[in-house]
């Protein structure tokens, strides 16, 4: 009875997973079929196959530029975040000061008020800081990270104080303590944060769309949306699939290789 139930549950889950994988299967199959075959929707075509769609997508879109901009954006955001969250995380984990809980409670609002929601004032701020239509303008709203501060506070608190106290006896200053004592011990937390941050910003669309207008400052997601609307107009669905693959593949491959890391990071975060 119990095993029969389990088998039925697994069969139902397999059916769901099969449906779930259809869009990916179509992307893989269609991207390998050059030209405009009439049965482009087929998941089991007889061929011919080739890499023509990838060549066409790569040459008709500005993928190298979009990759570069996306790397710069994600890397820039993460680099600054690691500094700000380590500093604030240390203050909340180790220093006792009046109003600490009040200041800490200022952070969660950032989780709700994502930049595109506040488009009107955020664009005004970017214009007045001369950051509109520049990559640093896309990055700036993310330089503080409520989730990162929570995570670093927790991570630092889990580290025994002995290490710091020994270093303090040797006369180490707070920057030295954070940089050379705590951060090396906080690596799991930093890796978890980096995975969540990179995934969120690699996939982000609406804010980079709003904050940038020139084609030379576009990131992958924004580039893909203009690219696909062009290819769709010509019914080049194989090229659409190939372009989508270029945007989706890097994170998918990283995920498949480092699956455990990704999943534990997502679970420990919950907040993108």
């Amino acid at each position, binding site marked *: 009875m119990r095993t029969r139930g389990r088998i039925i549950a*697994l069969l139902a889950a397999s059916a769901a997973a099969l449906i779930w994988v259809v869009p990916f299967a179509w992307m893989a199959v269609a991207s390998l079929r050059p030209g405009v075959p009439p049965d482009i*929707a087929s998941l089991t075509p007889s061929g011919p196959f080739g890499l023509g769609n990838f060549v066409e997508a790569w040459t008709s879109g500005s993928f190298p530029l979009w990759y570069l901009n996306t790397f710069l954006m994600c890397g820039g955001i993460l680099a600054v975040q690691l500094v700000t969250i380590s500093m604030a995380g240390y203050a909340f984990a180790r*220093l006792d000061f009046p109003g600490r809980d009040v200041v800490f409670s200022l952070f969660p609002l950032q989780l709700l008020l994502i930049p595109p929601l506040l488009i009107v004032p955020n664009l005004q701020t970017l214009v007045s800081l001369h950051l509109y239509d520049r990559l640093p303008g896309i990055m700036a709203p993310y330089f503080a990270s409520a989730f990162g501060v929570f995570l670093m506070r*927790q991570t630092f608190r889990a580290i025994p104080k002995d290490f710091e106290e020994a270093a303090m006896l040797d006369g180490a200053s707070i920057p030295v303590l954070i940089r050379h004592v705590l951060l090396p011990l906080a690596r799991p937390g930093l890796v978890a944060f980096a995975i969540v941050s990179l995934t969120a910003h690699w*996939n982000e669309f609406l804010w980079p769309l709003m904050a940038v207008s020139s084609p030379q400052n576009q990131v992958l997601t924004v580039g893909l*949306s203009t690219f696909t609307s062009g290819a769709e107009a010509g019914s080049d669905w194989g090229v659409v699939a190939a372009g989508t693959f270029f945007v*989706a593949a890097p994170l998918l491959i990283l995920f498949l290789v480092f*699956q455990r890391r990704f999943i534990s990071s997502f679970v420990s975060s*919950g907040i993108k």
Partner: protein
Amino acid sequence: MTEVGLSQTRHRIIIRASSGLTTDRGVTDSMIIEQRAIGADVAPLPAARRRSHRWLPVAVLLAPSLLFLGLFTYGPVLRVIGGSLIVGRFAGDHALGFGNYQRLFADPHFARAALNNLIYALGTIVPSLVLALALALALRETNRFTAVLRTLVVMPLLIPLVAAAALFTFIFLPGDGLLDFYLHKLGVPMINWLGDTDLALGAVIAITVWKNTGYYMLFFLAGLAGVPQDLVDAATIDGAGAWRRLRSIVLPLLGPTFGFVVPIALLNAITQVDHVVTMTQGGPSDATNLLLYYIYQQAAQNYDTGLASAATVISVAALLSLSLISFRLIERGVHYES
């Protein structure tokens, strides 16, 4: 999920563990986690006390974060409230009033976007959470087979919503698209999924469910790992069926997970509209217009900052009031899971 539900669950776990009746590892671990969660903000830090009056390090350490919070979270809130009350600009002078709100509430497009967003929230949250929980229960045991199925369901989380939109634009394409291609073989006539006012919102909902279910499943899997197996076994011996065990043991113990996942799903339902922007532009005839897309239209297309500001204030107020309880739950959820 209410806060009462959460504290009842916590109470139960602590009582069970401290009564010493169980040696189950899961319970002991969850008790430690619970204690840490409760004690985290209470326990004084003796070493830190000695430095309590050194303001400079605190100010320097917090300055970068607070600067950006001020520039892009708190400042904008004040500015958008102010902007929503400006009804006219005459030679550098502002007139204040509620005119933008009057225009907003008189705008049928806004009413439609609000209603759509409500349907969209219910239509995405309920099915994806039910499906995520069902999948987590089915794939709870870890072996090669379940690991592969889990991976397949989580994969959509890793791709951008615009990439998902590009794939689903083809899936929903009338005639040659994937759905119609296979439905045609079953004798179903052509359907214009994204072009039909009755179907378009459902199609957009389907994309979101596809994209987010795996994410929520991860949390339910983590939550299920904390449900003590001996409790479930004891209920089985007492003759409780699968449904009864789920309702009386598993679901109550998943309270914290729900308290954590529901706010995230709610946030996604209001803030993730990339597919609407790239696929439907809110159409046909407002059938897929959602609050954030409406704000985007007013701000970036109609340059009506007054109306956009008023719509932002209303949307943020809705988001905040809906998340009022969940705020604390999110924070506790972070402690609980980590």
